[in-house]
């Protein structure tokens, strides 16, 4: 990650400084470490030490032996790896063309597509899978049509392939978001030089654009892998049990919270997530992705040739139809009174919405408060960790990254129970209110659990900022803090925003931890409300209606933040031109 372009003499002062580390940096690192220890590591340890201890407290590795002795566990392990791997492949096929076309070409509705592409993440997994059942399931609309017209049905929602299908549509936005941010950050001069040298089309993409955007792609792909590897909701809704995360959940909830095998699985999930992160970091190490000139808004978007345009629009419309099908399903469900074994609902109604707005407005504001604060904390901490890791020599800085990443692999149930155990007697300073009875617990839990998303995005964004830009600022007399605030953070804005959006929307649909931590219904966020409604036949309509409200509001937020960033970029560009 050093600066290959700079002459050795020019960077000497900064390099000399980078060899040491300041007290301020160490203080920030310590503060973050303390936060993570208190709200992530310790609560998790109180729960998963079961995996390596005897009831009397002595250490043992015997439970790991027991785990590998079970052929069911070995099979689940293989299934989880297979599903996660296949999902990454399919998600790549969907996300890469979407990102490339919308960022690099003059394309009508690019912002709209970027926004729509994020929508799948907004839906809680159990709701998306339920909607997909209505459309693609055994007696879903698609199979009813196929059965009536052609006499056969497609079992796309059955078994492992059903999981892969749903997960792909659910998680490909991780790649789309990160890759789009990375593409927008590439120095357009690189592409122009390549074009001047005669490269175009596939060759230009394969040799220049994609390699430069690799940090974004790898960040997204490793997230998809880990999310799918750890995902619980989708396999459960599709009644697939022979995978690792469902096995852990089933053991902990049915055999008991003290069952060691369940925690051995958690251990393995954590280990694999860290390995996947470390693997992607190792893969990127030793390559330089930073480019000197920033030109996101000024980057020339190319025109599509007519046949290309037809192809591109065809592909995008096709993909979007598939991607938005769960939303269509939810929308129809929210407008229906009865929908059973028919192509579309037979009785339509708006009652479900009036029920939701009468009963659940508090939940909507709660979601915005908790998830907004959590996402804000996430990008602040994420940026700080990324900076400490990539730009300083504070000892043990890698551990901040590893520690934060642990949260990715923690099943919500484990963290939820860990919180209940650890903070049972904790009171909030000054007010004396029990921490567990207050809404702050949600903010803390969401912050910790969604930090890895923000961290990945911030990391990728910072990797693309060339060191010599900071050196230039410091050579001109700017302090380190001022350099970060005025140069680094603005240059990372796209990545930070992507991190904020991912953290926010994934926190908004978090459910397993939310159920455990809700101590009063008046404190509950929207995801809890959707879950609650969806537990009864008569509640499916209102549940879907609340889901639609959530989707619309978060989509609007995403769209506006894209607009905001685009506007700011344009403004800065104008300022730069004036003098």
């Amino acid at each position, binding site marked *: 990650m050093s600066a290959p372009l700079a002459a050795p003499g020019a960077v000497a002062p900064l390099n000399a400084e980078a060899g040491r580390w300041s007290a301020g940096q160490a203080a920030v690192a310590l503060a973050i470490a303390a936060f993570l220890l208190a709200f992530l590591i310790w609560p998790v340890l109180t729960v998963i030490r079961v995996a390596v201890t*005897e*009831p009397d407290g002595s250490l*043992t590795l*015997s*439970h790991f*032996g*027991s785990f590998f*002795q*079970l*052929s*069911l566990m070995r099979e689940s392990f293989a299934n989880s790896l297979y599903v996660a791997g296949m999902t990454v492949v399919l998600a790549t096929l969907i996300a890469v063309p979407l990102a490339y076309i919308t960022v690099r070409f003059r394309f009508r509705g690019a912002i709209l597509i970027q926004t729509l592409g994020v929508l799948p993440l907004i839906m809680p997994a159990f709701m998306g899978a*339920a909607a997909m*059942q209505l459309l693609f*399931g*055994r*007696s*879903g609309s698609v199979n009813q049509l196929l059965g009536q017209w052609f006499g056969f049905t497609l079992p796309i929602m059955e*078994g492992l392939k059903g999981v892969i299908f749903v997960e792909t549509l659910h998680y490909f936005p991780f790649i789309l978001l990160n890759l789009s941010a990375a593409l927008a950050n590439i120095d357009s001069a690189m592409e122009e030089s390549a074009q001047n040298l005669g490269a175009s089309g596939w060759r230009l993409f394969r040799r220049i654009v994609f390699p430069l955007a690799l940090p974004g792609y790898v960040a997204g792909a490793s997230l998809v892998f880990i999310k799918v590897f750890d995902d619980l909701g989708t396999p*459960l*809704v599709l*009644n697939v*049990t*022979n995978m690792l995360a*469902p096995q852990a959940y*089933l053991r902990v*909830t*049915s*055999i008991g*919270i*003290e*069952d*060691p*095998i369940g925690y051995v699985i958690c251990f393995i999930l954590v280990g694999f997530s860290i390995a996947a992160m470390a693997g992607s970091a190792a893969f990127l190490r030793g390559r330089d992705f930073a480019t000197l000139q920033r030109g996101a808004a000024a980057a020339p978007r190319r025109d599509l040739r007519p046949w290309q345009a037809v192809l591109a629009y065809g592909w995008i419309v096709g993909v979007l139809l598939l991607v938005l099908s769960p939303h269509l399903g939810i929308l129809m469900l929210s407008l229906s009174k*009865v*929908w*059973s*074994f*028919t192509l579309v609902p037979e*009785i339509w109604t708006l009652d479900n919405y009036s029920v939701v707005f009468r*009963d659940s407005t508090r939940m909507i504001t709660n979601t915005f408060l908790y998830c907004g*604060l959590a996402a804000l904390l996430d990008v602040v901490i994420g940026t700080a960790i990324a900076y400490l890791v990539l730009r300083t020599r504070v000892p043990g800085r890698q551990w901040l990254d590893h520690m934060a990443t642990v949260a990715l692999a923690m099943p919500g149930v484990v963290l939820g*129970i860990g919180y*209940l155990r650890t903070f049972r007697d904790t009171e909030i300073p000054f*007010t004396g*209110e*029990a921490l*567990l009875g*207050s*809404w702050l617990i949600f903010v803390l839990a969401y912050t910790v659990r969604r930090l890895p998303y923000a961290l990945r995005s911030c990391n990728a964004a910072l990797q693309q900022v060339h060191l010599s830009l900071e050196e230039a600022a410091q050579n001109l007399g700017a302090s380190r803090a001022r350099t970060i605030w005025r140069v680094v953070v603005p240059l990372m804005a796209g990545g930070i925003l992507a991190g904020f959006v991912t953290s926010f929307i994934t926190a908004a649909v978090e459910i397993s931890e939310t*159920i*455990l931590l*809700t101590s*009063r*219904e*008046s404190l509950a966020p929207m995801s809890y409300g959707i879950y609650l*409604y969806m*537990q*009864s*036949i*008569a509640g499916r309509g209102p549940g879907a209606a609340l889901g639609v409200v959530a989707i619309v509001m978060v989509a609007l937020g995403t769209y506006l933040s894209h607009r905001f960033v685009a506007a700011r970029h344009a403004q800065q560009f104008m300022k730069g031109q004036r003098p």
Partner: protein
Amino acid sequence: MQSFLAARLAAAILALAATGTAAQQQVTILTSFPKELTSAYKAAFERANPGMRVEILNKGTSAGVAYLRETRAGDRPDVFWASAPDAFEVLAKDGLLAKFDPAVKGIPDKIGNYPVNDPQGFYRGQALAGYGLMWNTRYLAANKVPAPKEWADLVKPVYFGHLATSSPSRSGTTHLTIETILQAEGWEKGWSQVLQIAGNAVAITERSFGVPDGVSNGQFGIGLVIDFFGLAAKNSGFPVEFAYPSQTAIVPANIALVNGAKNADLGRRFIQFSLSPAGQELLLDPKISRLPVLPETYRKAPAGYPDPYGGKIRAKVNFDSELSESRYFVVSALFDHAITFRHKELVAATRVIHEAAVKLAAKPNAQGQRLLTEARALAFTPVVDETKTRDKGFLALFRETKRDAARQKQMTALEEHWGKQARQNYDKAAALARQAAAAAK
């Protein structure tokens, strides 16, 4: 931006502190019941007791138990209200329930052979639930499948690929259904029936609600469900029917006062209300459709409403709750390792067995018939025999969840053995059935 955030936080904390002191007359109910039911009770109780507020805390039964265990005394909710009796047993054993006699008149001590209230006085029956079959009329018509009447009907080849059930380890209601079949038919024959039903099933759902949900929207044709799921779906306008088979059990859904509750007095008042005529009548709401525990309430029920006291539901099984409890974990674990996790293989074996039977019916062949009988015996015999379930040491292994490494090893070996044995049986049965089909040619 940061100062704005800090100001916002401070303001929010102050606002919360203010609301915290205002809410004194508040009763908190921890429940697994759906929103229609809880909202109806909340509204009715608040109307009857002006100035009091009901706070509903909805969690799945097992999450609810975990929550109570992890909450400190004095901060706990006041009332626990859920279906599965075993959850209440667990809580009572952990000292998390308080004895309370609401002294309501008119509620019988027993329904069939099953005590309505906990003999020790920790929890009380609040409603009754029977288990039965629910089916989607459109699905059955489209697939030309007849409506079932008895559990035993479900083993027929015509139902292959149309059933759904949950697993006893996931849902207390499913556990009671399975246990009812086992008690009605005996261990070996009962398991044979359960295995054949599961072989015909298209899914073993993770939540008990997954079954009525899938039947209502037409993913599944027929489901094994608790009565109110079926009745509520029907009363909400879905094209479904519900029936009690003759061998069913009626058991209570329960309510209890929590030990270490924040507001025990209000909790008592809520329990009393839920058992009063006014509280019982709420259960008749079409969207709720539960069976009241108070016999006189049935006089206000609409025509055709099932009445467990009126002889309309023929519960032939006298449910033995002690037997059920003694082997609770064995039944759950056996179901999961032989059925839930090996469902693919079981379904594959069942399919070829059905196919071979059809071929042999068309072209009878003694050798083929013998092979088919052998295949059936292999696929549909439980891998644990009944004598084992009376072995105290064996049962104790399952009861204790805090295990040391040696016991965990023993347990793991057992699970591995069951799963492996079941898989081998299913694969071998499928091979035999294929040979049987070949013999018919």
